[in-house]
């Protein structure tokens, strides 16, 4: 905990805390193991991972903002349906945008763009944060979670693309006698890599708590 309370720096303001919570303490992947599906399926290429990260961040920011704005109007019993409708609207925007400006990426991601709707992070943030807080803070919280999630996607994609294809963003980085680890491009490699990442990050987080 902070010892120098006199210096009220930017680090202790509320909005900063909300923003960074999603990136580290409340990280959607490490602490709550949410949003794994699209993470594993999409990260075999870096460009897909970046597109997915930007898409998810966009959706978390705007869905949190709108859920928060309507939080006094949404009746408790049908709130899930309301979240879903709001989220789906923004996912459609992302899908159309990708189809219009980046058709190859849209082709490669296939149904996984649509599956952002069922990404638990979006639902989770709406239910855990946006429904109880003001729109500004909720959008910030969405941004933090989105950035934390994108960071993780990029981290996984870099390893999987370099080892699996020997390239980054299509540029060859590995030496020519490098044998591609095909396993990294398919499902088992994704599972193993995430397992190892979880192991490393949880060990570090435990150390930091003590």
């Amino acid at each position, binding site marked *: 905990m902070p010892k120098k309370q006199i210096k009220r720096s930017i680090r202790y303001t509320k909005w900063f805390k909300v923003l960074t919570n999603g990136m580290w303490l409340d990280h959607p992947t490490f602490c709550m*193991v*949410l*949003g*794994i*599906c*699209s993470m*594993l*399926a999409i990260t075999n290429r870096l460009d897909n991972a970046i597109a997915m990260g930007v898409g998810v961040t966009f959706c978390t920011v705007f869905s949190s903002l709108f859920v928060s704005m309507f939080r006094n109007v949404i009746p408790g019993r049908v709130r*899930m*349906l309301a979240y*879903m*409708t709001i989220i*789906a*609207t923004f*996912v*459609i925007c992302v*899908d*159309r945008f990708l189809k219009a400006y980046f058709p190859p990426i849209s082709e490669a991601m*296939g*149904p996984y763009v*649509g*599956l952002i*709707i*069922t*990404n*638990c992070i979006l*639902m989770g943030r709406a239910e855990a944060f946006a429904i109880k807080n003001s729109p500004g803070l909720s959008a910030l919280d969405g941004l933090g979670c989105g950035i934390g999630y994108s960071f993780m996607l990029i981290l996984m994609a870099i390893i999987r693309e370099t080892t699996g294809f020997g390239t980054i963003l299509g540029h060859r980085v590995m030496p020519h006698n490098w044998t591609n680890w095909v396993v990294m491009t*398919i*499902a*088992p*490699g*994704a*599972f*193993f890599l*995430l*397992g*190892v990442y*979880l*192991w*490393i*990050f*949880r*060990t570090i987080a*435990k150390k930091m708590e003590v």
Partner: protein
Amino acid sequence: MNTTNPLTLLIASIFTHNIALVYILGMCPFIVISKNFKTAVGMGVSVIFVVTLTAVITWPIYWLILVPAKAEIVSYLIFICVIAATVQLLEMIIEKFFPPLQSSFGIFLPLITVNCIVLAVCLFMVLRKYDFIQTVFYSFGTSTGWSLAIVIMAAIKEKLVLVGDIPKGLRGAGITMIIAGLMAFAFMGFAGMITLQ
């Protein structure tokens, strides 16, 4: 239209193209609910039922209403509403007419709304242009494949309690991912039996 034999599709979606271990979908419940064998079976059965039912409902909605109306752009919205409505309806029916089922089956239903595989089956069905019979077989096969995977996972995890010396950071989700990786390897053994376009 896609011309794959429905029976081939059924086998393919259970084994060679298992949705959990090849397409990596439906992971959240796969990790969280696989702690107990009985719970996993309950979840599996609910998923088979809901996925097949929603696929049967969304197929006519998409091909007979949305496509003639040129409204494919809102298909995600319609799909998700149909899924949520179906689950809600099913919950009410069970509560009203089959109270004994409520405790074993009903508690999983709200969770299924956010299960990716329900939506994924709808999206794949549209993307690959399956006809109605194919959709029925495909959705049943896919959900059975997912249930098979979660039941196997739960059985392994129950035995895992006996292993004492898993590293601290790896416990819980970490080791689940590693086991899932090994299972994915095992399921790769089926690959090559059938190729699906």
